[in-house]
């Protein structure tokens, strides 16, 4: 083993250095942060929205933090594996996340007994808000949401609808059909384990009507006829499509809906509480990167969301969504 002249072993020196670092006040360490590359964890597979957002955003975040930011995918279990992994990392600010916090964090708690709580995650900024879109193929005869509902009222078995099980989309479908006294259990419902397959089936006319997140439909916009957006304002990509609120007013019932994906930069709440200085640095860097004009134009070019909402608004939206999901837990747990 290598020994230096004083006879102190290298391991002892290293240990002492480590202890000194640990003993140093938090502010001192924060000044050094970040002193090494940062991982940007994506709990979903490559090629999805979160992955694209992370890869597009990473260079701008890196510019602000002065350290390389590398994207790491850790997919599985509807985000559960990646989210659990993030909570298990040291609270040193070297693991940040880009994820669909809503609905996946509350969803895995409600339906898959995930061992974390909604409050364990802190939203730094959630620029991407997606809503369920009810759509049909261009080849199908339905021109509006009323056409579909009328057909289902006459015979609930006349149409095939497609949806992801245990999703915000399923809650929205159930609420809409319930409001029109359509027996949801009799409607022929095909379940898809992913938004992509559900959208393909809608666009190809394999199913009559699909209920899926709207943003993913943009590349297929030429093949589908959007019927209804589940939001209180019209979707950017589908400005001519009525919202559930407009529809509810017309039909004379109280409109209710659940937000779709809420995606953006997320950290463990413990990191914010235990390391306020590091958190301040992350917050500042994320805000600056999000507002960087070059970042805005790059992300917009890739149809990715870039707005700065800040932690306050983002956490409010996230917690609201989570409590609504709690309310509709019976629908979510019911499977298909």
């Amino acid at each position: 083993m290598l020994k230096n002249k004083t006879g102190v072993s290298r391991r002892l020196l290293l240990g002492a250095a480590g202890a000194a670092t640990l003993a140093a006040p938090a502010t001192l360490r924060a000044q050094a942060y970040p002193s090494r590359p940062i991982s940007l964890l994506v709990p979903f597979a490559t090629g999805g929205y979160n992955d694209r957002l992370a890869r597009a955003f990473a260079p701008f975040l890196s510019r602000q933090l002065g350290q390389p930011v590398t994207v790491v995918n850790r997919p599985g279990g509807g985000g559960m594996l990646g989210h659990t992994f993030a909570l298990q990392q040291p609270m040193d600010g070297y693991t940040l996340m880009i994820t669909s916090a809503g609905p996946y964090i509350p969803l895995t708690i409600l339906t898959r007994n995930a061992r974390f709580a909604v409050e364990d995650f802190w939203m730094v900024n959630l620029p991407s808000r997606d809503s369920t879109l009810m759509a049909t193929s261009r080849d199908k005869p339905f021109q509006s949401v009323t056409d579909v509902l009328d057909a289902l009222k006459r015979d609930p078995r006349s149409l095939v609808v497609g949806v992801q099980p245990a999703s915000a989309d399923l809650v929205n479908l159930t609420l809409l059909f319930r409001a029109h006294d359509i027996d949801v259990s009799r409607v022929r419902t095909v379940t898809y384990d992913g938004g992509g397959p559900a959208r393909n089936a809608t666009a190809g006319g394999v199913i009559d009507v699909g209920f899926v997140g709207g943003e993913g439909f943009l590349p297929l916009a030429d093949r589908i006829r959007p019927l209804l957006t589940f939001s209180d304002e019209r979707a950017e990509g589908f400005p001519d499509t009525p919202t559930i609120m407009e529809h509810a007013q017309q039909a004379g019932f109280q409109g209710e809906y659940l937000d779709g994906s809420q995606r953006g930069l997320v950290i463990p709440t413990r990191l914010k509480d235990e390391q306020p200085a590091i958190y301040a640095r992350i917050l500042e860097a994320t805000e600056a990167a999000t507002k960087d004009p070059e970042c805005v134009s790059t992300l917009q070019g890739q149809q990715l969301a870039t707005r700065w909402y800040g932690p306050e608004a983002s956490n409010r939206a996230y917690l609201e969504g989570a409590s609504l999901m709690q309310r509709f837990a019976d629908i979510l747990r019911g499977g298909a």
Partner: protein
Amino acid sequence: MIDLAAAGSAIAMLAGNPQAWIWMIPGLVIGLVFGALPGISGSMALALVLPATLYMDFLPAIIFLTSVFTGAGFGGSVPAVLMGIPGTSAAVATTFDGYPMSRQGRHNEALGAALIASCIGVMLSYAVLFVLVQPLAEVVLRMGPFEMAAIGIWGLVLLGSIGSSSLAKGLFAAAIGVLFGTVGMNTAGYIRGDMGVSWLLDGVPTIPAMVGLLAASQLFALVNTRFIVANEEDRKISLPRILAGGASVLRRPVTVLRGALIGAGIGAVPGVGASIANLISYGEARRSDPEPESFGQGNVKGVMAAEAANSSSEGGSMATMLALGIPGGGATAILLAAFAMHNVIGGPRFMDENRDVVYAIIMSNFAQAVLLVVVGTAFVFVASSVVRMPLRYLIPCVLVISTMGAFAIEGSHAGPLTLCVFAVLGWLMARNGYPVAAIVVGLLLGKLIETEMLRAWQMAGGEWGEFLNHPAALVIGALMAVSLIWSAWRDWRRARARRVAASAAS
């Protein structure tokens, strides 16, 4: 359907741009190496080189990535032939006849045939793409659960009892595979068989399980052997014999053409891809051959059919990606991400507005297929030296690389753990005469069949008659029935002829 003006400008685009050419060979080599490492898939290779393409222009970037894609498509077959361990899940069927050929000392011929069948597969599929990109994508988008379930069942019927002398043992192994394929969450959101382990929620990690099963059963069977090829004479690596193997492909146009068409068609279906195409093409070649029992014993036609299909599914998946903007699998998802990095959104609008770029991509893939003949031959030449390596060094190396690959693909210990568990299972099964290949087939097809049959049932609303409304599924089902009855009749006639001959002789 071919836009001649756009084709002309595509040629000009490629001719006037040296950048479009210099990345092809590095891309092919990267793809070959990554594809050949067991457990590391083509999509991982693409993900690793993706950041490098940020600094290239759009066309060179896409050409570089498709070169990696093409290289990886063949790379997986090299360990499949030499060691019976597929480098990627798309090369499972290649092991069925490729590895027996190697053990007989015909590794040169097997690799040559695999290479040329792959190159022809790539070329044919892009030729299909060149002419039919739009209609192919349209057909694929309309494929519903009934049709997909029929394809999956076809595969299982063709291959369910593969590699076994006993039908019962084969079916038992395939059933175990199907059961493993159903672990985790099904498409309706129900969780079965995960035993409370959260990484099993998405099912048993397929690639580590497959590598574990095949590696254990092949490598442990070699324990008292000194070399893969027993005869020292045959351990030579011979360029003429590799080329002779390649030339033999040209004498079997039907096998290769059928494989390429199956590959292009099935590869185009989102979420199915090369591994299923590889199995079904092999199964079809075996079924329609006058001597089906020679398959699995080192029949070069099996290698050709398997390789033509897994390579041609690249072109098929490109069709869905280019025409619809839908990624069929991991590799095309990364290609779409590369599009996005250059601010290009794939899909119908991109096709309409940039037909010349699409044609340039397709034409460059023809060039890649031709280059693959040269680069692939050199690669095969080098890689074949494993047959000269004593097994006491080779086996530990392969096991270590497989374990690392399993870790890389899962990103956690779930990969190596799965590999170990399935290695033990594979060893036990092989020792007791159960065909390990059938478990792998069940594992790969089980998930597809369960998902699609469940959706078909949901769509029918529980009514059996609904499948009569799906003519395409009926046609696939009818073809399946006719071909099976025909094979059975042929076997029966041959058996009777043999009996008659035997009784006449006595």
